[in-house]
């Protein structure tokens, strides 16, 4: 890794082209990501401006397994010359994973402030919610209902149109 003098903190464009940023996950794994890809994360963008030296940025909220995928996502979205349709298809494949993993992505995208990933994953969950009955939702998301039967009955009655 090259060590260049710290850039001025104003611009968001890569200060050193092809510069690799090092990230460390909560479980101690280290990953490298191109600066251009890292800038998709507002959190990383702020951190990069401050310190252009090579020490890995610690991310205590993200495990290695998830961080690897996040790096993959950001790198793909920083790639030039990818047309919209194939990117969409790639995104669809990216979130075609276990439910728990989707939520891992959501939390990581929220922590790292990656709008594209956050939108993508939240849409996935919204799609999971849409069109299901309350029982199905509870079952799907493993929600332990703490409604009493009377309370639930009342809600259903008030919004009966939605339950037809």
């Amino acid at each position, binding site marked *: 890794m090259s060590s260049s003098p710290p850039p001025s903190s104003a611009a968001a464009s890569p200060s050193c082209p092809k510069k690799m940023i090092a990230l460390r996950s909560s479980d101690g794994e280290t990953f490298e990501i191109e600066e251009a890809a890292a800038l998709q994360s507002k959190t990383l963008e702020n951190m990069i401006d401050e310190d252009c030296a090579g020490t890995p940025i610690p991310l205590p909220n993200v495990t290695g397994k998830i961080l690897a995928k996040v790096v993959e996502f950001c790198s793909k979205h920083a790639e030039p010359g990818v047309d919209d349709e194939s990117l969409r298809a790639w995104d669809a494949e990216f979130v*075609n*994973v*276990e*439910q*728990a*993993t*989707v*939520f891992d992505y*959501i*939390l990581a995208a*929220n922590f790292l402030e990656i709008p594209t990933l*956050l939108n993508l994953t*939240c*849409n*996935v*969950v*919204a799609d*999971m*919610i*849409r*069109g*299901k*009955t*309350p*029982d*199905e*939702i*509870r*079952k*799907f*998301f*493993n*929600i*332990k*209902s*703490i*409604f009493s039967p009377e309370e*639930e009955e009342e*809600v*259903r009655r*008030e*919004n009966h*149109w*939605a*339950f*037809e």
Partner: protein
Amino acid sequence: MDLPRPEVEGEGGEEDGEDQLGRLPDDLLLHILDRVHDARSLARCLAVSKRLSSLVPLTPTVSLSFPRPRLLPASSESESEPGRWRRRSGFLSRLVDRFVRGPLRFLHRVASAKSASRSGGGGDDDCDCDCDYDSRPAPGEVLKPFRGIESLRVELPSCVDAVGLNGKRTVLRWTARFGGEMKSCVVLGANSLRRREDGAAASGEEGALELRPRAVEEVELEPGPVIAEEELKLRVVWIISCLIAASARHYLLRQIVADHPMLKSVAIVDSDKQGKVRMLEEEIAEMRRSFDSEAADSSSAERIRVPDLRMKLWYAPELELPESGYVMRGATMVLIAPASEAEGEEHGKAKEGGGGGGDLGDVMRSASFEGGGGEDEAAFREAATEMGKLKRTYTLEMNSF
């Protein structure tokens, strides 16, 4: 009733047994709910858990749509028809019945915020278009739980398509803007809209009522064609239908604006993309101010009175739309504004009769047919631009009704 459902496959992850939504903080969960949009799904979430039932009302973006109405078995010739719209033979009355009365009944029912009785369908109140409106819930009631709505979209079911000349579907779009009362309405209609063929124009199926453009030597004196009386009558029907539909939606909007204090933008569209009424933050604020200053006029339970109107009409018997690749026959554009507003520049433009000057021009430009989607979207926009260039316009006035 919940039906038994097979195990969820694919993205389902209920094997691990953890409440995934519980891992998210409230603001993230609200972020997700904000993307569901569908009011029905969101209302169901109210019954899922206490947490969801406290978050759902805060959802900023909601979209309410009604599934396509079931068509009842044909019982089209209904016997006794009280009221103003007596049945007459002829396509004009059928047009009015389908276009106006059906939607109007529906809107009357929904605007009166009473939950529709769950009759077995149809019943005594069926409209001539044979659509099953009775089991539809009232939007006002449906939206009650969503106190925090900021952006609302309502999609109203469409009746069976309005019938035009020769039994072909009428090509019609309209859009209106409201503040406290109607600010403007733009109607764009045509006898037909079809793809442009290279070479010869599409065959003339429109029949004898279509006009030929004026002979060449008269072009300089009178740059525009004259509308035949039958065509003009048809267009007046269009205009009235659109105005009635618009003002019925206005009534619905007043309810919605009153019930939802956080509202910043609302749109009511037809599912067949014909009509669109929109309000943005400023207009909503204007409407709220008008609540205070006027006594509730409940004389007309169905809709709000339409004020005196001034209209400008453009007409082209045949309009080429090269950019979008369509041809429009009998193209008509009408720009409607309350007489009080239109007065200002009409005086100035009395001699010219030119198209789209001053504020009316701005209204035209801002009248957006966008968001409807569909390939004829671009055709309508181009048609609006092209017709605005026509020199000859007609001016109509209509008394308040």
